[in-house]
């Protein structure tokens, strides 16, 4: 009989929780929702022995169980609700040994809620470098819980921890804080009103829930009023009482007296990284380095992917008998997929840099440097991490904005994140930019492609700031506004943490984008190769007549050369897809877009990167090959049938670039905004705002330069 133990990892931010989670679970982890809620959970599995399986829940880092931000609320919600299916059998509390006193504050609160817990004492090495060491048995005796020293980043102590879980699982909780000073009658009333057996849990729940607008919270508020209970004073007393208990324990267990003479490396590094000139210079230089890496260094693996797909298409084309299935696979599925998978290297490189900066602790410094800059726009320093993350993908970044305490600042950040140019725009930008600027163009040591790309990212960033300012004028808040953030010590990046992050992100991109792209490609291919019978017959008729009028020599030439391309184009125009493109053409003509771009705008409504796949499918259907160079060639050759001028003028491309920079063509973002703001209202406002912004800017640009 297999036994399942559910444990939750709890701790302050930056205590090494993620490293421990990765060390315990490796790649056996997945992100999903708690049943029936919008609360996201990260769950992993590990085998303890033949019979015992460990289910590990990674909860967001928090400083206390009186949550002040949305991610802290997640942790509180899981720990307070005993009927929750994922309610843990045990909490593994990860404590940073170099900052033990503050870390233990949360530990005593968690334990008082009634969950059995043990302490994994992490970062002993960091503490030792600062001259702090602890006598573990004394600490255990003082606190009355099991303390296991670990080094999550070096994977030390993990086996001991597993062994304890297997043979010596703590089953009772310890109580630290006494409610003796609180009116017994009030606690009774609260316990009855909240169905909590534990008085502390009831009081804590009542304090956290009293500000919500529900019947229950009104009742709780009334109880507090009845006993004239001063919540502010109680909370202060509670914190001090806990710190006092912790102080006694920590002092008793501490081996050497504090010796703060050694200057830490972190301080020296920070003196440079937060310096008024060097700090900003280094930040800008890092951003620039990332763009160069994404745009220049990724070309080698991209060429490989492209070559791989080309030979795969060739193979499939020859291996399968000619016919509908062959066409569908080669011109529909493979053409669409290769157009997007080719950008995987760029996305991996981008995520790699963001993950590294986050892992070493640099992102917190960026928040510190930029707070003053963000303030006039209704955001704060903590908004910077989600905004920079938005350059990789808006979806995880919108979730990362949970760390922003102030509701209004968080909402504004969420609303403007999609303006940051995400990796899905890369394929679109790459294709469009390369149409007018040769690869070889350089400016000093820099590739001009890289510079133009950086300009597009800058356009997105400026638009995000200005939009935030606009939203700030309309969104009001009475919540107290503050900015308080820890600057964690620098750490060496950890290869396993980075690899797991990259594996997750790359997998999500390939699976997520892949699914949509295959579906869209197939549907599009069908729509582009079939059409209303009358129209299709008319095209067939036209060419039959033309052929009949030709001489033998002309016929042969036409069959081999140019006419078939024109013929394909006519068929596309007559197809269902073409008819639809034609239908919306009047609306997008003022932006400089023709009906073929119209088809792509429609298909990329679900996800931007589909634009490139659609373009390859459309131009593959109308005769061109399916690698990127040939799509570009085909697009450049494209002529407007009425004016005879090229369809893709500089003004059209610029207009298209702006459209893709601003428009919210990403269903995943719409879904996540609805989930995170808990209302369809803001998702709709955001979608409409961004669509109007995109249409307006494209219109302006094309009308001025077109």
């Amino acid at each position, binding site marked *: 009989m297999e036994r399942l133990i559910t444990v939750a990892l709890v701790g302050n931010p930056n205590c090494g929780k993620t490293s421990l989670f990765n060390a315990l679970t490796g790649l056996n982890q997945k992100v999903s929702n708690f049943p029936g809620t919008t609360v996201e959970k990260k769950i992993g599995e590990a085998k303890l022995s033949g019979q015992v399986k460990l289910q590990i829940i990674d909860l967001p880092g928090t*400083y*206390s169980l*009186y949550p*002040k931000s949305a991610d802290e609320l997640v942790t509180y919600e899981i720990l307070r609700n005993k009927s929750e299916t994922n309610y843990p059998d045990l909490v593994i509390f990860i404590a940073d040994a*170099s*900052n*033990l*006193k*503050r870390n233990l*504050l949360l530990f005593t609160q968690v334990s008082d809620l009634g969950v059995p817990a043990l302490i994994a004492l992490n970062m002993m090495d960091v503490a030792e470098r*600062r001259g*702090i060491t602890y006598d573990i048995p004394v600490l255990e005796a003082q606190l009355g819980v099991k303390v296991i020293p670990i080094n999550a980043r070096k994977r030390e102590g993990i086996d001991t921890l597993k062994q304890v879980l297997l043979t010596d699982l703590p089953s009772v909780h310890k109580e630290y804080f006494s409610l003796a000073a609180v009116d017994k009658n009030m606690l009774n009333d609260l316990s009855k009103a909240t169905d909590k057996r534990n008085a502390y849990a009831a009081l804590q729940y009542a304090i956290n829930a009293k500000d919500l607008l529900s019947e229950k919270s009104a009742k709780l508020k009334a109880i507090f009023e009845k006993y004239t209970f001063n919540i*502010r004073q109680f*909370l*202060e007393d509670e*914190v*001090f009482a806990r*710190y006092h208990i912790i102080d006694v324990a920590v002092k008793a267990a501490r081996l050497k007296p504090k010796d703060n003479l050694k200057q830490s490396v*972190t*301080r020296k590094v*920070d*003196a440079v990284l*937060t*310096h*008024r*000139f060097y*700090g*900003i210079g280094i930040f800008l230089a890092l951003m620039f380095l990332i763009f160069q890496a994404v745009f220049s260094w990724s070309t080698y693996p991209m060429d490989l992917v492209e070559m791989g797909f080309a030979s795969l298409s060739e193979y499939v084309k020859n291996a399968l008998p000619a016919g509908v299935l062959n066409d569908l696979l080669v011109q529909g599925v493979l053409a669409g997929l290769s157009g997007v998978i080719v950008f995987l290297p760029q996305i991996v490189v981008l995520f790699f840099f963001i993950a590294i900066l986050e892992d070493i602790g640099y992102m917190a410094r960026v*928040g*510190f*440097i930029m*707070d*003053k*800059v963000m303030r006039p726009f209704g955001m704060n*320093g903590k908004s910077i991490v989600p905004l920079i993350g938005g350059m990789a993908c808006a979806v995880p970044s919108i979730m990362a904005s949970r760390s922003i*305490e102030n509701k209004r600042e968080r909402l504004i950040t969420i609303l403007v994140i999609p303006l940051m140019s995400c990796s899905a725009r890369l394929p679109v930008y790459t294709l469009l930019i390369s149409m007018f600027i040769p690869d070889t163009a350089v400016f000093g040591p820099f590739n001009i492609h890289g510079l133009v790309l950086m300009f597009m990212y800058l356009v997105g960033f400026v638009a995000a700031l200005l939009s935030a300012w606009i939203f700030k004028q309309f969104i009001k808040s009475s919540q*107290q506004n*503050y*900015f*308080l*953030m*820890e*600057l*964690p*010590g620098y750490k060496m990046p950890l290869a396993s943490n980075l690899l797991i992050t990259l594996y997750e992100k790359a997998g999500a991109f390939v699976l997520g984008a892949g699914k949509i792209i295959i579906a869209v490609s197939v549907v599009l291919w069908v729509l582009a190769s079939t059409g209303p019978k009358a129209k299709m017959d008319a095209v067939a008729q036209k060419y039959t007549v033309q052929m009949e009028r030709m001489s033998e020599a002309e016929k042969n030439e036409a069959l081999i050369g140019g006419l078939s391309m024109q013929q394909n184009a006519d068929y596309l125009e007559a197809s269902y897809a073409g008819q639809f493109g034609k239908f919306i053409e009047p609306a997008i003509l003022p932006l400089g877009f023709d009906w073929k771009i119209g088809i792509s705008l429609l298909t990329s409504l679900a996800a931007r990167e589909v634009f490139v796949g659609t373009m390859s499918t459309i131009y593959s259907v109308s005769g061109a090959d399916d690698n990127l160079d040939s799509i570009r060639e085909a697009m450049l050759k494209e002529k407007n049938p009425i004016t005879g001028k090229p369809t893709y003028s500089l003004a059209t491309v610029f207009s298209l670039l702006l459209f893709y920079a601003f428009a919210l063509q990403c269903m995943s973002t719409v879904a996540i905004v609805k989930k995170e703001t808990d209302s369809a209202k803001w998702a709709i406002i955001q979608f409409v705002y961004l669509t109007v912004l995109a249409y307006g800017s494209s219109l302006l640009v094309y009308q001025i330069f077109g």
Partner: protein
Amino acid sequence: MNLSEIKKGQQALVTKVNGDILALKLFEMGVLPGELVSLEHIAPFGDPIAISIGESKLCLRLEDAAHVEIELTAWKD
């Protein structure tokens, strides 16, 4: 004197923390009466500041630091 007025090289003792939610948040993050505090860095645009208190390094805006009352103890270094 309050924390927003502290200068580089000064060391001070936190005597009182004012404010409502802000005060509780400060307590939870280790800004407590009786702790020694010193100024570590000033952000490039003059605000916020980074302080060292207890065993942690925190950053906060000057307007929030004004809620923390301090008493200078000595010049460090």
